[in-house]
Protein backbone atom coordinates (compact mmCIF):
# COMPACT_ATOMS: atom_id res chain seq x y z
CA UNK A 1 0.00 0.00 0.00
CA UNK A 2 1.18 3.52 -0.86
CA UNK A 3 2.65 5.75 1.85
CA UNK A 4 1.22 8.77 0.14
CA UNK A 5 -1.67 10.70 1.64
CA UNK A 6 -2.92 11.77 -1.79
CA UNK A 7 -2.01 10.77 -5.30
CA UNK A 8 -3.82 12.69 -8.04
CA UNK A 9 -3.31 11.92 -11.69
CA UNK A 10 -4.58 14.12 -14.53
CA UNK A 11 -7.66 15.19 -12.57
CA UNK A 12 -10.25 17.34 -14.28
CA UNK A 13 -13.42 18.75 -12.79
CA UNK A 14 -16.22 20.69 -14.45
CA UNK A 15 -19.32 22.20 -12.86
CA UNK A 16 -22.70 20.73 -13.88
CA UNK A 17 -23.10 23.50 -16.48
CA UNK A 18 -19.82 22.43 -18.09
CA UNK A 19 -17.66 25.29 -16.79
CA UNK A 20 -14.19 23.87 -16.09
CA UNK A 21 -12.81 24.27 -12.56
CA UNK A 22 -9.73 22.03 -12.66
CA UNK A 23 -7.71 20.74 -15.61
CA UNK A 24 -4.98 18.11 -15.69
CA UNK A 25 -4.13 18.28 -12.00
CA UNK A 26 -1.45 15.80 -10.92
CA UNK A 27 0.12 15.93 -7.50
CA UNK A 28 1.38 13.78 -4.67
CA UNK A 29 1.12 14.59 -1.00
CA UNK A 30 3.23 12.85 1.63
CA UNK A 31 2.38 12.59 5.33
CA UNK A 32 3.41 15.60 7.42
CA UNK A 33 3.62 18.07 4.54
CA UNK A 34 2.36 21.63 4.89
CA UNK A 35 1.11 22.66 1.46
CA UNK A 36 -0.41 25.92 0.30
CA UNK A 37 -2.59 25.97 -2.79
CA UNK A 38 -2.08 29.39 -4.33
CA UNK A 39 -4.20 30.91 -7.02
CA UNK A 40 -6.34 33.84 -7.99
CA UNK A 41 -10.08 33.90 -7.34
CA UNK A 42 -11.82 31.28 -9.46
CA UNK A 43 -8.66 29.32 -10.20
CA UNK A 44 -10.05 26.15 -8.60
CA UNK A 45 -8.30 26.02 -5.20
CA UNK A 46 -11.49 25.50 -3.21
CA UNK A 47 -12.77 22.95 -5.70
CA UNK A 48 -9.54 20.98 -5.37
CA UNK A 49 -9.92 20.98 -1.58
CA UNK A 50 -13.50 19.71 -1.93
CA UNK A 51 -12.24 16.92 -4.16
CA UNK A 52 -9.61 16.02 -1.58
CA UNK A 53 -12.34 15.91 1.08
CA UNK A 54 -14.62 13.77 -1.11
CA UNK A 55 -17.31 16.42 -1.14
CA UNK A 56 -17.07 16.54 -4.94
CA UNK A 57 -15.70 13.92 -7.30
CA UNK A 58 -13.41 14.28 -10.30
CA UNK A 59 -15.00 14.40 -13.76
CA UNK A 60 -11.97 12.48 -15.08
CA UNK A 61 -8.57 11.33 -13.87
CA UNK A 62 -7.84 9.46 -10.67
CA UNK A 63 -7.78 10.56 -7.04
CA UNK A 64 -6.30 8.22 -4.46
CA UNK A 65 -6.25 8.83 -0.73
CA UNK A 66 -4.14 6.66 1.57
CA UNK A 67 -3.56 4.30 -1.36
CA UNK A 68 -7.24 3.78 -2.16
CA UNK A 69 -9.44 5.31 -4.85
CA UNK A 70 -11.46 8.26 -3.63
CA UNK A 71 -14.61 7.93 -5.67
CA UNK A 72 -18.34 8.30 -5.16
CA UNK A 73 -18.70 4.52 -5.24
CA UNK A 74 -15.99 4.02 -2.63
CA UNK A 75 -17.50 6.65 -0.34
CA UNK A 76 -20.86 4.95 -0.67
CA UNK A 77 -19.49 2.13 1.48
CA UNK A 78 -20.15 3.19 5.08
CA UNK A 79 -16.98 1.73 6.59
CA UNK A 80 -14.82 3.42 3.94
CA UNK A 81 -16.62 6.73 4.34
CA UNK A 82 -16.38 6.72 8.14
CA UNK A 83 -12.70 5.71 8.00
CA UNK A 84 -11.92 8.51 5.55
CA UNK A 85 -13.87 11.13 7.51
CA UNK A 86 -11.98 10.23 10.66
CA UNK A 87 -8.68 10.84 8.89
CA UNK A 88 -9.47 13.91 6.75
CA UNK A 89 -11.20 17.03 7.98
CA UNK A 90 -12.11 20.28 6.27
CA UNK A 91 -12.32 23.83 7.62
CA UNK A 92 -14.61 25.87 5.40
CA UNK A 93 -13.87 29.44 4.37
CA UNK A 94 -17.16 30.72 5.77
CA UNK A 95 -17.37 29.74 9.43
CA UNK A 96 -21.09 30.61 9.39
CA UNK A 97 -21.60 27.68 7.03
CA UNK A 98 -19.61 25.27 9.15
CA UNK A 99 -21.13 26.18 12.51
CA UNK A 100 -24.73 24.98 12.44
CA UNK A 101 -25.29 23.69 15.98
CA UNK A 102 -27.07 25.66 18.72
CA UNK A 103 -24.06 25.69 21.10
CA UNK A 104 -20.29 25.50 20.77
CA UNK A 105 -20.24 22.29 22.80
CA UNK A 106 -22.73 20.57 20.49
CA UNK A 107 -20.84 21.91 17.47
CA UNK A 108 -17.57 20.39 18.61
CA UNK A 109 -19.30 17.15 19.64
CA UNK A 110 -21.05 16.79 16.27
CA UNK A 111 -18.20 15.06 14.42
CA UNK A 112 -17.26 12.50 17.10
CA UNK A 113 -20.91 11.58 17.60
CA UNK A 114 -21.53 11.08 13.88
CA UNK A 115 -18.39 8.99 13.61
CA UNK A 116 -19.70 6.60 16.23
CA UNK A 117 -17.70 7.62 19.27
CA UNK A 118 -19.12 6.67 22.64
CA UNK A 119 -21.10 9.70 23.94
CA UNK A 120 -19.37 9.22 27.29
CA UNK A 121 -15.96 9.72 25.67
CA UNK A 122 -17.16 12.61 23.53
CA UNK A 123 -17.41 15.00 26.47
CA UNK A 124 -13.75 14.43 27.32
CA UNK A 125 -12.81 14.86 23.65
CA UNK A 126 -14.76 18.12 23.50
CA UNK A 127 -13.02 19.35 26.67
CA UNK A 128 -9.62 18.62 25.11
CA UNK A 129 -10.46 20.24 21.78
CA UNK A 130 -11.80 23.40 23.41
CA UNK A 131 -8.73 23.62 25.65
CA UNK A 132 -6.39 23.11 22.67
CA UNK A 133 -7.73 26.17 20.91
CA UNK A 134 -8.13 28.12 24.19
CA UNK A 135 -11.89 28.52 24.09
CA UNK A 136 -13.31 26.45 26.99
CA UNK A 137 -15.16 29.59 28.13
CA UNK A 138 -17.24 29.58 24.92
CA UNK A 139 -18.69 26.11 25.56
CA UNK A 140 -22.30 27.20 26.13
CA UNK A 141 -22.35 30.09 23.69
CA UNK A 142 -24.27 30.10 20.41
CA UNK A 143 -21.66 29.90 17.59
CA UNK A 144 -23.40 32.48 15.42
CA UNK A 145 -23.07 35.10 18.17
CA UNK A 146 -19.27 34.88 18.32
CA UNK A 147 -16.69 37.16 16.71
CA UNK A 148 -15.00 36.15 13.45
CA UNK A 149 -11.84 34.99 15.24
CA UNK A 150 -13.80 33.01 17.81
CA UNK A 151 -15.89 31.37 15.08
CA UNK A 152 -12.71 30.30 13.30
CA UNK A 153 -11.39 28.77 16.53
CA UNK A 154 -14.66 26.88 17.06
CA UNK A 155 -14.50 25.66 13.47
CA UNK A 156 -10.96 24.42 14.09
CA UNK A 157 -11.93 22.79 17.38
CA UNK A 158 -14.85 21.06 15.65
CA UNK A 159 -12.46 19.29 13.27
CA UNK A 160 -9.41 18.88 15.54
CA UNK A 161 -11.57 17.03 18.04
CA UNK A 162 -11.52 14.12 15.58
CA UNK A 163 -7.71 14.03 15.67
CA UNK A 164 -7.49 13.79 11.88
CA UNK A 165 -4.34 12.95 9.94
CA UNK A 166 -5.09 15.56 7.29
CA UNK A 167 -6.45 19.06 7.68
CA UNK A 168 -7.84 20.88 4.65
CA UNK A 169 -8.41 24.60 5.13
CA UNK A 170 -10.04 27.03 2.73
CA UNK A 171 -8.70 30.57 3.19
CA UNK A 172 -8.10 30.02 6.92
CA UNK A 173 -6.75 33.51 7.62
CA UNK A 174 -9.28 35.46 5.56
CA UNK A 175 -10.85 38.29 7.54
CA UNK A 176 -8.88 37.63 10.72
CA UNK A 177 -7.20 40.38 12.72
CA UNK A 178 -3.44 39.95 13.39
CA UNK A 179 -3.92 38.39 16.85
CA UNK A 180 -6.47 35.86 15.57
CA UNK A 181 -4.26 35.06 12.57
CA UNK A 182 -1.35 34.49 14.95
CA UNK A 183 -3.45 32.16 17.11
CA UNK A 184 -4.49 30.24 13.98
CA UNK A 185 -0.86 29.79 12.93
CA UNK A 186 0.01 28.49 16.41
CA UNK A 187 -2.78 25.91 16.20
CA UNK A 188 -1.68 24.79 12.74
CA UNK A 189 1.96 24.60 13.90
CA UNK A 190 0.95 22.34 16.80
CA UNK A 191 -1.04 20.14 14.41
CA UNK A 192 1.90 19.87 12.01
CA UNK A 193 4.35 19.22 14.87
CA UNK A 194 2.20 16.24 15.85
CA UNK A 195 2.70 14.82 12.37
CA UNK A 196 -0.46 16.13 10.73
CA UNK A 197 -0.67 16.95 7.02
CA UNK A 198 -1.99 20.38 6.06
CA UNK A 199 -3.33 21.57 2.72
CA UNK A 200 -4.67 25.08 2.66
CA UNK A 201 -6.00 27.31 -0.06
CA UNK A 202 -4.99 30.93 0.17
CA UNK A 203 -3.92 34.01 -1.66
CA UNK A 204 -2.61 35.56 1.52
CA UNK A 205 1.03 35.88 0.43
CA UNK A 206 2.33 37.62 3.61
CA UNK A 207 1.33 34.70 5.89
CA UNK A 208 2.37 32.00 3.47
CA UNK A 209 5.85 31.25 4.82
CA UNK A 210 4.42 30.79 8.30
CA UNK A 211 1.70 28.38 7.22
CA UNK A 212 3.33 26.19 4.56
CA UNK A 213 6.60 24.72 3.33
CA UNK A 214 5.46 23.74 -0.15
CA UNK A 215 3.39 25.82 -2.53
CA UNK A 216 1.33 24.70 -5.50
CA UNK A 217 0.32 27.50 -7.83
CA UNK A 218 -2.88 27.06 -9.82
CA UNK A 219 -3.30 29.43 -12.74
CA UNK A 220 -6.43 31.02 -14.11
CA UNK A 221 -6.50 28.22 -16.70
CA UNK A 222 -7.13 25.84 -13.74
CA UNK A 223 -3.83 24.02 -14.26
CA UNK A 224 -0.83 23.70 -11.95
CA UNK A 225 1.82 26.24 -12.94
CA UNK A 226 4.36 25.58 -10.19
CA UNK A 227 4.97 23.16 -7.37
CA UNK A 228 7.90 23.62 -5.02
CA UNK A 229 9.25 25.16 -1.84
CA UNK A 230 7.35 28.26 -0.74
CA UNK A 231 10.49 30.41 -0.84
CA UNK A 232 11.17 29.46 -4.47
CA UNK A 233 7.61 30.21 -5.51
CA UNK A 234 7.51 33.54 -3.70
CA UNK A 235 10.72 34.73 -5.36
CA UNK A 236 9.46 33.85 -8.83
CA UNK A 237 7.81 37.17 -9.60
CA UNK A 238 6.98 36.47 -13.27
CA UNK A 239 5.13 33.33 -12.16
CA UNK A 240 3.19 35.23 -9.48
CA UNK A 241 2.27 37.96 -11.95
CA UNK A 242 1.23 35.46 -14.60
CA UNK A 243 -1.05 33.69 -12.12
CA UNK A 244 -2.53 36.96 -10.86
CA UNK A 245 -1.09 36.61 -7.37
CA UNK A 246 0.77 39.92 -7.47
CA UNK A 247 0.49 42.80 -9.89
CA UNK A 248 2.49 45.84 -10.80
CA UNK A 249 0.85 49.13 -10.01
CA UNK A 250 1.53 52.75 -9.37
CA UNK A 251 1.71 53.79 -5.74
CA UNK A 252 1.70 57.37 -4.63
CA UNK A 253 3.16 58.52 -1.34
CA UNK A 254 2.78 62.26 -1.00
CA UNK A 255 4.61 63.86 -3.85
CA UNK A 256 6.44 60.63 -4.72
CA UNK A 257 5.23 58.14 -7.23
CA UNK A 258 6.76 54.72 -7.90
Amino acid at each position, binding site marked *: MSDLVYDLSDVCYAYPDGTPALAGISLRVSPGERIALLGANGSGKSTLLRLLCALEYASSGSVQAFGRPLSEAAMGVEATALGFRRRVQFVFQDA*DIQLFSPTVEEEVAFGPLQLASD*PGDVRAQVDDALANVSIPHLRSRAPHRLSGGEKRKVALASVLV*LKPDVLLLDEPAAGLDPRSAGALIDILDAFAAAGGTILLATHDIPLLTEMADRAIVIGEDHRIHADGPVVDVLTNRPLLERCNLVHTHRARKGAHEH
Partner: protein
Amino acid sequence: MLLAVSLMHHPASLGALYAVGLLAAATSRVPMWPLLRREWIVVALFTGVVAAPAMMQRVTPGPILLALPHGFTLSETGVIAAARLVLRAVASVHVALLLTQTTPWHRLLRGLRSLGAPAVAVMVLSICHRYIYLLLRMAGEMLTGREARRVGRVNAAQARGQIAASAGALMVRSQDTATAVFQAMAARGFRGEPKELSPSRFTAADAALVVGSIAFGVAAYLIGGVLNV
Protein backbone atom coordinates in the same frame (compact mmCIF):
# COMPACT_ATOMS: atom_id res chain seq x y z
CA MET B 1 -50.44 28.06 31.64
CA LEU B 2 -51.29 27.40 28.00
CA LEU B 3 -53.54 24.58 29.14
CA ALA B 4 -55.22 26.85 31.67
CA VAL B 5 -55.72 29.50 28.99
CA SER B 6 -57.37 27.01 26.69
CA LEU B 7 -59.64 25.66 29.46
CA MET B 8 -60.91 29.06 30.68
CA HIS B 9 -63.65 30.87 28.89
CA HIS B 10 -64.74 33.85 30.94
CA PRO B 11 -62.99 37.08 29.98
CA ALA B 12 -62.39 37.97 33.65
CA SER B 13 -60.53 34.72 34.40
CA LEU B 14 -58.60 34.99 31.12
CA GLY B 15 -57.69 38.56 32.03
CA ALA B 16 -56.54 37.45 35.48
CA LEU B 17 -54.34 34.75 33.94
CA TYR B 18 -52.90 37.27 31.48
CA ALA B 19 -52.12 39.54 34.46
CA VAL B 20 -50.28 36.64 36.12
CA GLY B 21 -48.32 36.19 32.91
CA LEU B 22 -47.43 39.88 32.84
CA LEU B 23 -46.26 39.65 36.43
CA ALA B 24 -44.12 36.64 35.54
CA ALA B 25 -42.60 38.59 32.65
CA ALA B 26 -41.87 41.58 34.89
CA THR B 27 -40.23 39.44 37.57
CA SER B 28 -38.19 37.67 34.87
CA ARG B 29 -36.94 41.11 33.78
CA VAL B 30 -38.23 40.69 30.26
CA PRO B 31 -38.41 44.12 28.57
CA MET B 32 -42.14 44.80 28.82
CA TRP B 33 -42.77 47.31 26.07
CA PRO B 34 -41.28 45.27 23.21
CA LEU B 35 -43.04 42.17 24.55
CA LEU B 36 -46.44 43.91 24.72
CA ARG B 37 -45.93 45.46 21.30
CA ARG B 38 -45.13 42.09 19.72
CA GLU B 39 -48.03 40.21 21.26
CA TRP B 40 -50.64 42.89 20.62
CA ILE B 41 -49.55 43.41 17.01
CA VAL B 42 -49.91 39.67 16.37
CA VAL B 43 -53.28 39.56 18.10
CA ALA B 44 -54.55 42.72 16.37
CA LEU B 45 -53.54 41.38 12.97
CA PHE B 46 -54.84 37.85 13.25
CA THR B 47 -57.50 37.82 15.97
CA GLY B 48 -58.76 41.40 15.93
CA VAL B 49 -59.85 41.01 12.33
CA VAL B 50 -62.11 38.13 13.35
CA ALA B 51 -63.20 39.52 16.71
CA ALA B 52 -64.23 43.02 15.60
CA PRO B 53 -67.18 41.96 13.40
CA ALA B 54 -68.27 39.46 16.07
CA MET B 55 -69.15 42.37 18.37
CA MET B 56 -71.88 43.59 16.04
CA GLN B 57 -75.50 42.94 16.94
CA ARG B 58 -76.14 41.66 13.43
CA VAL B 59 -73.37 39.03 13.68
CA THR B 60 -73.88 38.00 17.31
CA PRO B 61 -77.43 38.76 18.44
CA GLY B 62 -77.96 39.69 22.10
CA PRO B 63 -78.77 42.59 24.41
CA ILE B 64 -77.62 45.89 22.90
CA LEU B 65 -74.60 47.30 24.70
CA LEU B 66 -73.81 50.37 22.64
CA ALA B 67 -75.30 52.13 19.65
CA LEU B 68 -72.84 53.44 17.07
CA PRO B 69 -73.35 55.93 14.23
CA HIS B 70 -74.83 54.74 10.92
CA GLY B 71 -77.11 52.24 12.63
CA PHE B 72 -74.40 49.90 13.92
CA THR B 73 -74.90 48.38 17.36
CA LEU B 74 -72.67 46.31 19.60
CA SER B 75 -74.28 43.40 21.42
CA GLU B 76 -73.26 42.44 24.94
CA THR B 77 -72.96 38.81 23.87
CA GLY B 78 -70.77 39.79 20.93
CA VAL B 79 -68.46 41.98 23.02
CA ILE B 80 -68.00 39.19 25.57
CA ALA B 81 -67.26 36.69 22.79
CA ALA B 82 -64.77 39.07 21.18
CA ALA B 83 -63.11 39.82 24.52
CA ARG B 84 -62.84 36.10 25.22
CA LEU B 85 -61.26 35.48 21.83
CA VAL B 86 -58.81 38.38 22.08
CA LEU B 87 -57.83 37.66 25.69
CA ARG B 88 -57.36 33.97 24.99
CA ALA B 89 -55.20 34.79 21.98
CA VAL B 90 -53.11 37.42 23.74
CA ALA B 91 -52.64 35.27 26.85
CA SER B 92 -51.56 32.31 24.69
CA VAL B 93 -49.15 34.44 22.64
CA HIS B 94 -47.84 35.99 25.85
CA VAL B 95 -47.10 32.59 27.41
CA ALA B 96 -45.40 31.37 24.22
CA LEU B 97 -43.29 34.53 23.90
CA LEU B 98 -42.41 34.45 27.59
CA LEU B 99 -41.18 30.88 27.23
CA THR B 100 -39.02 31.67 24.19
CA GLN B 101 -37.65 34.87 25.75
CA THR B 102 -36.67 33.29 29.05
CA THR B 103 -35.35 29.96 27.76
CA PRO B 104 -32.26 29.57 25.55
CA TRP B 105 -33.12 28.17 22.13
CA HIS B 106 -31.01 25.04 22.56
CA ARG B 107 -32.85 24.20 25.80
CA LEU B 108 -36.19 24.61 24.05
CA LEU B 109 -35.02 22.18 21.41
CA ARG B 110 -33.90 19.72 24.06
CA GLY B 111 -37.30 20.10 25.65
CA LEU B 112 -38.91 19.17 22.34
CA ARG B 113 -36.69 16.09 22.15
CA SER B 114 -37.60 15.04 25.68
CA LEU B 115 -41.27 15.30 24.69
CA GLY B 116 -40.58 12.79 21.94
CA ALA B 117 -40.11 15.00 18.85
CA PRO B 118 -37.97 13.11 16.29
CA ALA B 119 -34.26 13.98 16.25
CA VAL B 120 -34.34 14.82 12.53
CA ALA B 121 -37.28 17.22 12.99
CA VAL B 122 -35.55 18.99 15.88
CA MET B 123 -32.33 19.21 13.89
CA VAL B 124 -34.14 20.72 10.91
CA LEU B 125 -35.80 23.22 13.25
CA SER B 126 -32.45 24.09 14.79
CA ILE B 127 -30.78 24.62 11.42
CA CYS B 128 -33.76 26.66 10.15
CA HIS B 129 -33.50 28.91 13.19
CA ARG B 130 -29.73 29.19 12.73
CA TYR B 131 -29.78 30.03 9.04
CA ILE B 132 -32.86 32.18 8.82
CA TYR B 133 -30.81 34.97 10.40
CA LEU B 134 -28.03 34.42 7.89
CA LEU B 135 -30.56 34.70 5.06
CA LEU B 136 -32.06 37.81 6.64
CA ARG B 137 -28.59 39.32 6.78
CA MET B 138 -28.06 38.46 3.12
CA ALA B 139 -31.41 40.00 2.23
CA GLY B 140 -30.55 43.14 4.22
CA GLU B 141 -27.20 43.46 2.48
CA MET B 142 -28.83 43.02 -0.93
CA LEU B 143 -31.36 45.74 -0.18
CA THR B 144 -28.65 48.04 1.18
CA GLY B 145 -26.56 47.41 -1.93
CA ARG B 146 -29.52 48.23 -4.13
CA GLU B 147 -30.35 51.41 -2.19
CA ALA B 148 -26.72 52.55 -2.35
CA ARG B 149 -26.76 52.40 -6.15
CA ARG B 150 -30.21 53.83 -6.72
CA VAL B 151 -30.75 57.37 -7.89
CA GLY B 152 -34.19 58.94 -7.68
CA ARG B 153 -37.50 57.29 -6.97
CA VAL B 154 -38.81 54.05 -8.42
CA ASN B 155 -42.45 53.54 -9.24
CA ALA B 156 -44.54 50.70 -7.84
CA ALA B 157 -44.03 48.44 -10.87
CA GLN B 158 -40.25 48.91 -10.74
CA ALA B 159 -40.24 48.28 -7.00
CA ARG B 160 -42.19 45.04 -7.48
CA GLY B 161 -39.73 43.97 -10.18
CA GLN B 162 -36.78 44.70 -7.91
CA ILE B 163 -38.32 42.77 -5.02
CA ALA B 164 -38.99 39.80 -7.30
CA ALA B 165 -35.40 39.91 -8.60
CA SER B 166 -34.05 40.09 -5.04
CA ALA B 167 -36.26 37.19 -3.95
CA GLY B 168 -34.98 35.11 -6.86
CA ALA B 169 -31.35 35.92 -6.10
CA LEU B 170 -31.92 35.16 -2.43
CA MET B 171 -33.46 31.81 -3.28
CA VAL B 172 -30.42 30.86 -5.36
CA ARG B 173 -28.12 31.93 -2.52
CA SER B 174 -30.18 30.00 0.02
CA GLN B 175 -29.85 26.87 -2.14
CA ASP B 176 -26.09 27.39 -2.32
CA THR B 177 -25.99 27.84 1.45
CA ALA B 178 -28.03 24.70 1.98
CA THR B 179 -25.61 22.73 -0.21
CA ALA B 180 -22.61 24.13 1.63
CA VAL B 181 -24.12 23.38 5.05
CA PHE B 182 -24.86 19.82 4.00
CA GLN B 183 -21.27 19.45 2.79
CA ALA B 184 -20.02 20.82 6.12
CA MET B 185 -22.11 18.20 7.91
CA ALA B 186 -21.09 15.42 5.54
CA ALA B 187 -17.42 16.31 5.97
CA ARG B 188 -17.79 15.55 9.68
CA GLY B 189 -19.43 12.20 9.07
CA PHE B 190 -23.14 13.05 8.92
CA ARG B 191 -24.97 10.35 6.99
CA GLY B 192 -28.59 11.32 7.55
CA GLU B 193 -29.03 10.22 11.16
CA PRO B 194 -28.27 12.90 13.74
CA LYS B 195 -26.78 11.73 17.01
CA GLU B 196 -26.89 13.72 20.20
CA LEU B 197 -24.40 14.44 22.92
CA SER B 198 -26.82 13.61 25.72
CA PRO B 199 -30.27 12.64 24.50
CA SER B 200 -32.90 14.35 26.65
CA ARG B 201 -35.08 12.03 28.66
CA PHE B 202 -38.46 12.62 30.20
CA THR B 203 -37.56 12.65 33.89
CA ALA B 204 -39.61 12.47 37.07
CA ALA B 205 -39.22 16.23 37.46
CA ASP B 206 -40.69 16.75 33.98
CA ALA B 207 -43.59 14.43 34.84
CA ALA B 208 -44.21 16.38 38.06
CA LEU B 209 -44.24 19.64 36.12
CA VAL B 210 -46.73 18.28 33.57
CA VAL B 211 -49.03 16.96 36.33
CA GLY B 212 -48.75 20.28 38.17
CA SER B 213 -49.59 22.23 35.02
CA ILE B 214 -52.64 20.07 34.30
CA ALA B 215 -53.77 20.45 37.92
CA PHE B 216 -53.36 24.22 37.65
CA GLY B 217 -55.36 24.31 34.43
CA VAL B 218 -58.17 22.15 35.76
CA ALA B 219 -58.26 24.13 39.03
CA ALA B 220 -58.45 27.39 37.08
CA TYR B 221 -61.28 25.95 34.98
CA LEU B 222 -63.22 24.71 38.01
CA ILE B 223 -62.76 27.90 40.01
CA GLY B 224 -63.85 29.90 36.98
CA GLY B 225 -66.96 27.71 36.69
CA VAL B 226 -67.88 28.00 40.38
CA LEU B 227 -67.33 31.76 40.57
CA ASN B 228 -68.71 32.28 37.07
CA VAL B 229 -65.71 34.42 36.09
